[in-house]
């Protein structure tokens, strides 16, 4: 009987919980995106549906999308047109299976969890290309190709920016990596050394680009290009693309949270204080499921809050910065992000060799390396050659 529970019922339960969460987060995000963009543009956002804050707006949107006619163009490759949204969805969903939501609360604990997440999320691109091709329209095809070029190139610096954190923590297991950062916030991996700090920021930039968010969303650009690869999609299939996009946003934000920003550990060691004061929420490192439930739920709330904070940062960037051109998108990746990432990688590898002591030497090294990074970054960004190239591109030769 316990076999029945462990081999069939528990996996089913985990999958159902994650699937429900996967769909609910999209509802929250669409509402949040509207509210955040409203605030940034000095307006109110949705206010009508469901009271003052318009919190039922997404439900109304969802109903609208479900009732829309499901169009398939006459020239489309029908089977592929139907399948491609599900490929994107599967890629995004599989990434959620290995995320530990709190200490050991993962559907599938895996030793190479970070690597697995990056791998399954790279499958999403294929659905995008398929959708662009199967639509039978040149518009969608070009959108898909641009999108593919962008996402494939940005995956390289994105994965390489995780490596400093993996080197610093010595594990690719997300659960262990996050548990290592317990305690005060300076135990977080982003404050481990200056290279991981810059890698954390660079990772966020690359992740924004690889999930096709503004300012890197030229391939989609709703206002000018009518959404690129999914131009021909409507109704439920379009909804699936969007759900997957929001889910992969959350997945990359959670990779950042787990590897760089302390995982489910809060900035203050609250759990330790409570234990000292005699209030036990349960210990953090117990092997069993039930006794630690209080501490883990605190961790879960922390984890969700951090993920959503990073998402709000992404939205903030989207509604603040202008969109960059497609050649600038590629140039940013290949000429700036990739060299900087390689430099950070080398620095993170060299760091433990030069700075051994925990206290004084570390702070000195931190400042020195930070200054060095700033100088190198300034030198890279403001070379006269690149400025001249930029001008020439603006006048279209």
């Amino acid at each position: 009987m316990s076999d029945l529970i462990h081999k069939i019922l528990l996996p089913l339960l985990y999958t159902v919980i994650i699937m429900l969460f996967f769909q609910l987060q999209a509802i929250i995000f669409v509402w949040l995106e509207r509210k955040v963009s409203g605030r940034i543009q000095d307006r109110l956002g949705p206010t009508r549906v469901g009271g003052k804050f318009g919190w039922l707006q997404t439900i109304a949107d969802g109903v609208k999308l479900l009732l829309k006619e499901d169009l398939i163009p006459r020239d489309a490759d029908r089977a592929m047109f139907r399948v491609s949204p599900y490929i994107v969805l599967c890629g995004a969903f599989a990434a959620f299976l290995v995320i530990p939501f709190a200490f050991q609360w993962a559907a599938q604990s895996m030793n190479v969890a970070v690597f697995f997440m990056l791998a399954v999320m790279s499958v999403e691109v294929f659905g995008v290309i398929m959708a662009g091709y199967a639509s039978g329209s040149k518009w969608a095809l070009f959108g898909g190709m641009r999108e593919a070029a962008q996402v494939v190139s940005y995956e390289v610096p994105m994965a390489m920016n995780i490596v400093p954190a993996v080197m610093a923590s010595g594990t690719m297991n997300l659960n262990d990596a996050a548990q290592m950062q317990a305690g005060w916030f300076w135990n977080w991996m982003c404050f481990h050394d200056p290279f991981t700090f810059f890698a954390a920021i660079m990772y966020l930039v690359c992740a924004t680009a690889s999930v096709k968010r503004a300012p890197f969303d030229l391939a989609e650009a709703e206002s000018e290009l009518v959404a690129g690869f999914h131009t021909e999609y409507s109704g439920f299939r379009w909804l699936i693309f969007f759900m997957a996009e929001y889910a992969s946003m959350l997945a990359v934000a959670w990779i950042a949270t787990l590897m760089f920003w302390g995982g489910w550990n809060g900035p203050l060691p609250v759990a330790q204080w409570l234990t000292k004061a005699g209030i036990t929420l349960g210990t953090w490192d117990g092997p069993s499921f039930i006794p630690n439930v209080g501490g883990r739920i605190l961790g879960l709330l922390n984890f969700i809050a951090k993920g959503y904070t990073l998402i709000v940062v992404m939205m903030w960037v989207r509604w603040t910065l202008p969109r960059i051109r497609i050649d600038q998108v590629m140039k940013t990746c290949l000429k700036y992000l990739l060299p900087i990432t390689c430099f950070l990688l080398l620095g993170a590898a060299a760091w433990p060799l030069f700075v051994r002591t925990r206290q004084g030497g570390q702070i000195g090294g931190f400042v020195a390396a930070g200054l060095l990074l700033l100088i190198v970054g300034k030198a890279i960004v403001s070379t006269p050659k690149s400025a001249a190239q930029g001008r020439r591109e603006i006048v279209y030769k």
Partner: protein
Amino acid sequence: MIQTLINSWPNALFYMMALVTVACAIAVVVTQNIVRAAVWLLFTLTGTAGLFFLLGADFVGATQLLIYVGGTMILVIFGVMLTARGPFVQMKTASGEWTLAAIVGLTLFGLVSGTLISTDWSRTKKSEAAVKAGEGITEANSPTTMQLGLEFLGVPPQNPKISRDPAGIGYLLPFEIVSVHLLVVLIGAAYLARAKRRKATTS
């Protein structure tokens, strides 16, 4: 009854996955549309990754996804899209191509099945038992691929039954030659791409 069902559940999953993988592989060959063939190939490679995951080889599975599905398939699609003239091009295979492909495929199949049959599978059980009993893995009870892996790393082969050249350096030299070959291909590809761009700027 229920107990046996549960115990056979992983096996059933494995066979389902294997069946899907094989069916997709057949579809790659049978289908006439070149992009659809690429899509079936994607499903085949993903199915292979799924088999790795079911066998508990997470790293190999993720690598399979990242390298084959994420990398090669993108390359295939780009190639297909840049060569296809119109939308949804149908391919027609000549009978000569069929025979050639059949010969190559059957040869490979013969090679793989021959290796499968000639492998001493009892070694796997021996090494499992050794690990369970807490003994170290030795030459006698090492898993079937361990010797091969060591020989790729240049460890002189010690089992005369496996290798005919007991004093040699294993397979290090052929392994290195293959990797240098890959490097040559990479440089060649980069050179071709560069030459094209230079022409475009001078004209």
